[in-house]
């Protein structure tokens, strides 16, 4: 019987079937960060249990760490306490801990793949919904809450119910200036923020195959904004080449054996999905959000909706509330909207190719008057690599702030917030009410589009900047 990528990953990790589609699944990697890690680790200790396999757990501060240049754990005191707790609990239980300023520190979903902690074919969990990012490597990676995190620390397993299988096939080629981020926002805008509820989503098709590995991580990063826990892309030769040589990747003959296995994970010809959607990638334009859900996504030449066009009363009031929060008029063109803040970073878009794309737009230009623009690399290694190739100078010469790695203004749990009513073009993944700070107005976009907004002071089609 032909199997999907998801089926193969699932089947390979079943320790015991529990009936009714439930299984006890082995967890191969558990990533711990400063916000959700300490409570789960403390809970295991309070129950008098050891960590089941501390060698499979990896910890680093990201959410509550300040990104201020020259930061210490105490720069944001509340975060400093969490940092201390994560460091101490990790030391006590034998968990590898990557501290601020060390190679390896960074946003969990950036440092995990970067170090080869995350490999194709593994099950990976983290107390963070964007763990689905790691599915871009062909890992079964999913976000969990505190209780599940505690369970996994104590048992190295989770009780999971098999989700439905969904495939989103992206046919055709993305146009010039159109990125994985635009594709992701376009898909969410087209299918809706609840389209993937209860599903494991495999992204497939020509446009997905053509993405480099970092872009695949970006695409899978936004799977949770479709309501799903799992996003997946089948590993191919590009994946194998990307993984080779990473710190925790196997070496020599062991790597070749692993690679052969990874390449066999792709969905079989004729494998059945519970739902299938087709997206025309060639029709995707640079895409931005106008409202307070990632599904409020429109092409850069589009207009924000008019509540009076809504199909029913509840949709009408939702549009009205979103327009009011965002300070936008019905039917306004999205391009040309003035902005005050730009944030380039987050587990969606803080990898080296993201920073290169933004730097290409920033090079030789200046951040517009009245705009504050931040670049926050996703990890210490990304930061050092970007500095080595001169990207820091490009950004600083253009008037961007170059900051320390962490989640920063995406999660706004580290003292870093967009001020109330300020409008921010952000490469992050959530434009929820208050997400970047109380009253903050977030427009999601790609790194190149964010840089274009910074240098023009407006939401701008990057393709018009030559």
């Amino acid at each position: 019987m032909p199997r999907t990528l998801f089926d193969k990953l699932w089947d390979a990790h079943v320790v015991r079937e529990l009936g009714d589609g439930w299984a006890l699944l082995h967890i191969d990697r558990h990533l711990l960060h400063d916000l959700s890690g300490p409570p789960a680790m403390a809970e295991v200790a309070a129950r008098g249990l050891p960590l089941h396999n501390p060698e499979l757990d990896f910890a680093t501060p990201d959410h509550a760490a300040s990104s201020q240049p020259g930061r210490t754990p105490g720069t944001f005191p509340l975060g400093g306490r969490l940092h201390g707790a994560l460091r101490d609990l990790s030391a006590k239980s034998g968990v590898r801990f990557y501290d601020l300023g060390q190679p390896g520190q960074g946003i969990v979903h950036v440092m995990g793949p970067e170090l080869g902690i995350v490999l194709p074919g593994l099950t990976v969990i983290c107390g963070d919904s964007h763990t689905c990012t790691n599915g871009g490597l062909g890992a079964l990676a999913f976000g969990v809450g505190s209780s599940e995190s505690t369970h996994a620390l104590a048992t190295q397993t989770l009780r999971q119910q098999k989700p439905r299988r969904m495939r989103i096939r992206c046919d055709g080629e993305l146009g010039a200036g159109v990125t994985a981020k635009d594709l992701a926002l376009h898909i969410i805008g087209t299918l809706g923020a609840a389209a993937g509820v209860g599903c494991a989503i495999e992204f497939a098709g020509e446009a997905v195959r053509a993405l480099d590995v970092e872009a695949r991580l970006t695409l899978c990063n936004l799977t949770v904004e479709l309501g799903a826990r799992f996003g997946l892309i089948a590993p191919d030769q590009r994946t194998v080449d990307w993984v080779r040589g990473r710190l925790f990747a196997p070496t020599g003959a062991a790597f070749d054996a692993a690679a052969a296995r990874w390449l066999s994970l792709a969905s079989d010809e004729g494998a059945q999905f519970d739902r299938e959607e087709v997206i025309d990638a060639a029709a995707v334009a640079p895409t931005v959000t106008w409202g307070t859900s990632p599904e409020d996504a429109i092409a850069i030449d589009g207009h924000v909706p008019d509540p009076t066009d809504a199909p029913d009363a509840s949709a009408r009031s939702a549009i009205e509330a979103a327009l009011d929060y965002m300070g936008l008029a019905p039917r306004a063109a999205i391009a040309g909207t003035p902005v005050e803040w730009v944030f380039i970073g987050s587990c969606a878009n803080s990898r080296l190719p993201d920073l290169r794309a933004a730097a290409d737009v920033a090079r030789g230009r200046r951040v517009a008057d009245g705009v504050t623009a931040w670049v926050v690399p996703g990890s210490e290694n990304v930061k050092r690599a970007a500095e080595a190739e001169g990207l820091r100078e490009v950004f600083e010469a253009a008037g961007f702030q170059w900051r320390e790695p962490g989640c920063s203004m995406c999660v706004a749990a580290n003292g870093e917030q967009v001020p109330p009513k300020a409008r921010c073009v952000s490469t992050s993944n959530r434009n929820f009410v208050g997400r970047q700070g109380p009253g903050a107005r977030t427009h999601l976009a790609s790194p190149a589009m964010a840089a274009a907004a910074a240098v023009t002071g407006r939401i701008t089609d990057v393709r018009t900047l030559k």
Partner: protein
Amino acid sequence: MTPFTAVTGAATPLMRANIDTDVIVRIERLTAFQRDQLGPYAFEALRLRPDGSEDPGCVLNQPAFRNAPVLLAGENFGCGSSREGAVWALMGLGIRCVIAPSFGDIFFNNCFQNGVLPVRWPMALVEALATQCAGGAPVTVDLHAKTVTAPDRRALPFDVDPLRREALLHGLDDIGLTLKDDALIREWQQADRVRRPWAWPVVQGATA
């Protein structure tokens, strides 16, 4: 975990789609407070005006719905962040059951871990119940019978996964249950080290 058998009381109609866990509880509250202190911070963005005073227009502030044990919501309730604090904040408001057409996957799961029952019902049914409950008339959610009894006394069925129902009814702790299988887990791991040696991290003479 607190067992869940049945609850009776008002059902608050919060009929909007895509209410995310950031809106249910802000991240700063989770860095500053314990899990049993979050009730006052639930739905801040909806309940409070910018100056911190209560917005009387918000349904959650209406006297009929203070301490209501049931919440009625639109599509994709609890989407977004994995924060289990969203469930703790709802519990702090006294909510034990949420009825909606669909839920964010992680939130749905987190509910069961804490003795909160998420009920998936078709939109039309949730809307009809919301209309009946608009004045604060009580409903009864019975997990034994798997029914919601509306103010008009009609008992309407809902589906719930058998394993999860059992765990909720008895307040069962998964960790204890799973550790009963620990020999099996260790056996699986031993076999896996042979099957997938590459899945077991080794770093020779290196630091990151």
